[in-house]
């Protein structure tokens, strides 16, 4: 059975923004390897046509008129926010800007 290297596990964990302890890395190396082995089976499928089906929907998007609707009052908007300052949602400083 396929097993991922530590680096590979850490790479996909980074993509999904999930921290892993050493013990988890070891465990996930096997499970992820199995799942990747599963999805790799798609490489063997032949004879299909290229047309893609994004969704079963066969109708177009309905367009909404540009008319203002009901908005949340500030208190409701902030109800579930874990950290806030004044009117703002607060996060640790964003370094990329």
């Amino acid at each position, binding site marked *: 059975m396929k097993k991922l290297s530590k680096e590979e596990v850490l790479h996909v964990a980074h993509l999904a923004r999930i921290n892993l302890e050493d013990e988890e890395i070891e465990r996930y190396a096997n499970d992820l390897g199995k799942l990747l082995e599963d999805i790799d089976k798609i490489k063997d499928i032949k004879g299909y046509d290229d047309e893609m089906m994004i969704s079963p929907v066969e109708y177009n998007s309905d367009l909404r008129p540009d008319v203002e609707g009901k908005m949340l009052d500030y208190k409701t*908007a902030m109800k579930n926010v874990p950290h806030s300052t004044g009117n703002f949602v607060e996060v640790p400083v964003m370094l990329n800007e």
Partner: protein
Amino acid sequence: MSNYKTTVGIEVHAELKTKTKIFSDSANHYGKMANTCTNVIDLGYPGTLPTMNEEVIHLGLRAALVLNCEINKHMHFDRKNYFYPDNPKNYQITQNRTPIGVNGYVEIDTENGKKKIRIHDIHIEEDTCKSIHADKKSMLDYNRAGVPLVEIVTEADMNSAEEAVKYLEKLRELLLYADVSDCKIEEGSMRCDCNVSVSKTDKLNTKVEVKNIGSISNVGVAIKYEEERQIALYEKGETFKEQTRRFDDKTMSTILMRVKETGNDYRYFPEPDIPFVDLTDEYIKETKENLPMSAEQRREVYKEAGINDINVEKIIQNRNISDYLNKFIKKINLVIASNLLLGDIAAYLNKTEMNLDQTKLTDEKFEDVVNYLDSGKINSKIFKEILDDVMESNDSIDKILDNHNIKQMGEDEVIDIINTVIENNPQSVQDYKNGNERAIKFLMGQIMKETKGNANPQMVTDKLTELLNK
């Protein structure tokens, strides 16, 4: 130094002038109290789904048309996945595979004549939250989350700071006059990122992305700064990695933000929550036919009407004046009208800090004033005298003139008086015809006495001369 060639590509984000957001019906308002223009969709609540604002499609299509793009009639949206706090769902809904427009161009004037800057694509997407940064914390305002944007991406077709500035000025003019966007850089409704590289050969060197440039002229400054910085490094034999820098308007320089990692991994995939949006040929045709008059078309009309080039550009710089003037095309003398709008009326508005629509100047009053000036019924001195009343009172121009005791006579009335004076003074007429120039002054004096000073002297001179020479 001069043997380096500069290459510039530009990405512009422009917010669309809609009433509501792209995927939700909360208000698209600038400058409201933080987090008061949101709903569950803008906040990225679990379980919420996007809806599609028809005006966004309409304005996006307009933008694509004025940029001469081929239109993707069978459009889909895609998810662009990246984790960042200003991105509420941690994916942005954008158009990756089927941007609304591709393969367009913008034409600019350069020293060497016209040049086409190719547009790689224009796509529709949602804006992010606005963030404010303190020492250890950043603060997020979701009012901007979901505001509709178009992103316009050029090919790397510009070769100087001047060309880049010209492109942006032209682009701004196109979007502004198509009523697509306010294009207010200072409010962030138009944002420019530039990719700059310099090379001695035709092979492109490492590019540097410059973000956060707060004005079009600073784009020029930033590009010039980058040219010099990069050339200096190459001349020292140094190289550098692809990077993102930000423009600092205090030092007028660029500052390193981050070195780019090996290719961005945005993990795009088609947005399953938004079915296809199809643009029919009729819809595209109709949108094209109903495009607002472009700046270029306006220039032509104004020049044809005899307005001088300087004033034409002044008008185009001010969309409100241009729109106002356009109401009177083929109705009144546009030269006089534009002189008033750029001169006395502009000064008045400036002084009172008002907009035209806040004054009492009606279309009818404006037409009268221009026509009176045109016919000589009043002169510019009189106009200055009555200006405040024209702008502030509900009275008609005739009433205002009355109130000021200004009874400028109409042409017909004046001609009647001239004819009477000519009839009553045959000797003076004969003297004039014999070459006595002083005779005309006497006749003028007689006419002015008859009109009690209520006739335009220039008109009287012109008409009198005309009638005497008949």
